[in-house]
């Protein structure tokens, strides 16, 4: 299985672990993640104004690059996934945006949303299959009680992202089961961590993260897992890392027995 891969800015720096463990795990599963050449930052948030074009172009470039290779585009970070998936939907379904973006881009062949955007979790669920993943696990994380933290960006708006049930998602829980651990379901797993608000309104974010942590802990979680660097930062920062928060790729690498091979790379 070959995929175009869009890591995103944070995965090069603060969230190196999200990236490195993903690559190692993908390799172990026989998935080839081919990084999009010269990708540019997606902008972190989807530009909501229906009249914005320039802020969507970096996503279009990555999408088109994948299209030219005839590959699906895999994302790892929730924010990148959210932005690129929604821009792709615009290119597919909003005539005005498609026309204007293509005018800017001057591509050989106009881009019209042909690429399929998949979050790595979706690759695991829909392409590899959690049953198959379970078979590949060498080092099941037995006895670990893990709470999935989805946040907002992967789930909402559900019609566009069509990722999972926005109010009662189960993809990460199924993932946790596949790697041999025990998922802990708690009601705040789809509530916002505060997102970018934590830059200027640290108290607000702290308040929200504390609620999330308390809820997860109350239901018996020993650790949390997430796909978003910003969620991870906010949860750690605001609650003083009450429960450890790790990327889902780290858990995956550990279960597949490839974590130690790349540990050093992460610490570099």
């Amino acid at each position, binding site marked *: 299985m070959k995929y175009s891969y869009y890591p995103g800015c944070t995965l090069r720096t603060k969230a190196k672990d999200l990236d490195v463990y993903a690559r190692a795990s993908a390799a172990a599963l026989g998935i080839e993640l081919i990084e999009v050449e010269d990708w540019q930052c997606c902008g972190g948030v989807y530009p909501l104004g229906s009249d914005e074009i320039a802020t969507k172009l970096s996503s279009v470039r990555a999408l088109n690059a994948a299209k030219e290779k005839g590959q699906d585009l895999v994302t790892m970070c929730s924010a990148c996934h959210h932005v690129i998936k929604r821009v792709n939907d615009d290119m597919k379904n909003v005539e005005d945006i498609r026309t204007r973006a293509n005018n800017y881009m001057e591509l050989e062949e106009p881009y019209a949303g042909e690429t399929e955007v998949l979050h790595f979790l979706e690759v695991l669920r829909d392409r590899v299959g959690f049953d198959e993943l379970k078979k590949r696990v060498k080092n099941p994380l037995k006895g670990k009680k893990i709470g999935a933290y989805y946040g907002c960006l992967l789930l909402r708006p559900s019609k566009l992202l069509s990722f999972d*049930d926005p*109010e*009662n998602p189960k993809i990460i829980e199924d993932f946790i089961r596949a790697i041999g651990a025990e998922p802990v379901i708690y*009601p705040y797993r789809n509530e916002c961590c505060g997102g970018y608000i934590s830059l200027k309104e640290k108290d607000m974010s702290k308040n929200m993260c504390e609620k999330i942590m308390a*809820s997860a802990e*109350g239901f018996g979680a020993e650790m949390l897992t997430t796909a978003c660097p910003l969620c991870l930062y906010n949860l750690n920062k605001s609650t003083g890392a009450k429960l450890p928060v790790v990327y889902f790729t780290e858990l995956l690498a550990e279960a597949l027995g490839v974590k130690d091979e790349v540990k050093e790379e992460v610490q570099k």
Partner: protein
Amino acid sequence: MQRIGVFVCHCGSNIAATVDVSKVAETALMEPGVVHAEDYQYMCSEAGQAKIAAAIQEKGLTGIVVCSCSPRMHEATFRKAAERAGLNPYMVEIANIREHCSWIHKDMEEATKKAVILMRAAVAKVNLNTPLQAGESRVTKRALVIGGGIAGIQTALDIADAGYEVDIVEKTPSIGGRMSQLDKTFPTLDCSACILTPKMVEASAHEKINIYTYSEVEKVSGFVGDFTVDIRKKARCVDMDKCTGCGVCQEKCPSKKALSEFNRGLNTRSAIYTPFAQAIPNVPVIDREACIKFKTGKCGICSKVCQAGAIDYEQKDEIITEKYGAIVVATGFDTINLDKYDEYAYSQSKDVITSLELERVMNAAGPTHGHLERLSDGKAPKEIIFIQCVGSRCSDDRGKPYCSKICCMYTAKHAMLIRDKYPDVNVTVFYIDVRTPGKNFDEFYRRAVEQYGVNYIKGQVGKVIPQPDGKLLVQGSDLLDNRQILKEADMVVLATAIEPNPDVRKIATMLTASIDTNNFLTEAHAKLRPVESPTAGIFLSGVCQGPKDIPETVAQAGAAAVKAIGLLAKDKLLTNPCTAQSDVLLCNGCSTCENVCPYGAISYEDKEVNDHGIRETRRVAVVNNALCQGCGACTVACPSGAMDLQGFSNRQIIAEVDAICR
């Protein structure tokens, strides 16, 4: 050449305010064949009809055009008026200058121009009309009622009391419907079973009523007065004649894990079961999915314990074919699936339930024997929160755009009953609006607030958050205090939207009855013919037509019965003379028309024809006028142009096209 009269109606100001009616009349006089034109305030009034009659007689009119409201409204009125004046009723055409013109256009000049064109098209058509004679068809004096809930039972009783045979077809093993699942009813707090079961018994004992339970309508053919219906009697695996209803088989059945439909899946039942104690008929059915005998071939305990020898594992589905003059649809409703509303944690907590589930919890025959308790741990709740409009009034694709109508009242009922029986339990209701139009309804709701101290908060709930200790944290709006509320509850009850029974779509298709975007059956006229389907001979009873409560359902059931009786009381019906006719000279007997006819109305005969002096015998199409419903499919399919439709002939429609494009 025809002598045509044109009559332009003002409809008060409905037409005259936007259409220059006198100009339409004046212009009409310039049309070919028009010898008389006038306008009048209300053409449908007695005076208006008298004008038409007078003109027909005085001017010897051979055809008339009425420029007025939709033909679906008053075509019949004007045809009758014409007939009384000695004109063939099918020499009348309507130009719809109200619904299709004055009501939708604002500019007088533009609307008048359009009205003139519509008048011209009608005149062009009537120029080509020919007098038609309606045929007659017989009426089978027997009615079919689809659905055995309170709506179906009431309709059947009323029809049967008038002396006609009625069959009730009910899908589940017992009649009774949703009402049998209710504990109490608003606004009088009558016990639901106490007022329903006597009716069930009456229906089953009535000599004119025949009940097919555990049965479904499989096929419908025919038309008003003469429907032929196939009913599938599903195999009960219990001989209805032998079974004494002793109940031993249910007691001894070792498979007891099937979810009870009657108790909304809140507890279990045996594989051989009657849905509830007062079921009619009191004869169990074997649920083959759950039965060990059917799954593994081993068991057979029910057969061994049945002293009457009524168990028959070999029983097969049976198809009964019956003829009916009228069919009443009473298929009822269900609550919507809540999968898309998981912010209310319905799938995450056993203590979040629907109102219909609460009915079962409050009922002595329910899963908790009538004790109000949490389904998760059996503890008595201290704090109960009701959430209104769950899935109702939603314009997104998660819910229903309509108001479910009954929820405000049953929530007040639940709140009141709980406060009455358990005064230490606090009850809070989150509402958007409290809607109580109905006799003694608002007084009832106010009693809940004033006498029983139910706490009503205006605002919707955003999320129900299950807590680690099993409590439910409800996060909602209080719009009047402008604050966000976080309130802990032991139970949450969702006033879940209701929707027509999902089977109704299939049934509507079989009956060719129209259905709206929400799967409610459409009435023939929203105000004046609310219990009739546009399809003749099909009547509507209960929630299949729109949300309604029990008194309204019973009233509508009676109304549907009266309409059905009115039909059954006739010995003959006049048939629609707008049927297809084949021109023997053009027909080449190719069978194309026969293949497209949905009624089997076309057959072939060897006929002697005189084709320009050549006499020969040809195989030609013959239309059975009693069977033809006048759809016109054959007229277009016919490759030689031999088929035409009376009243909507090729020449007539082309004349209309020409008039419009002129």
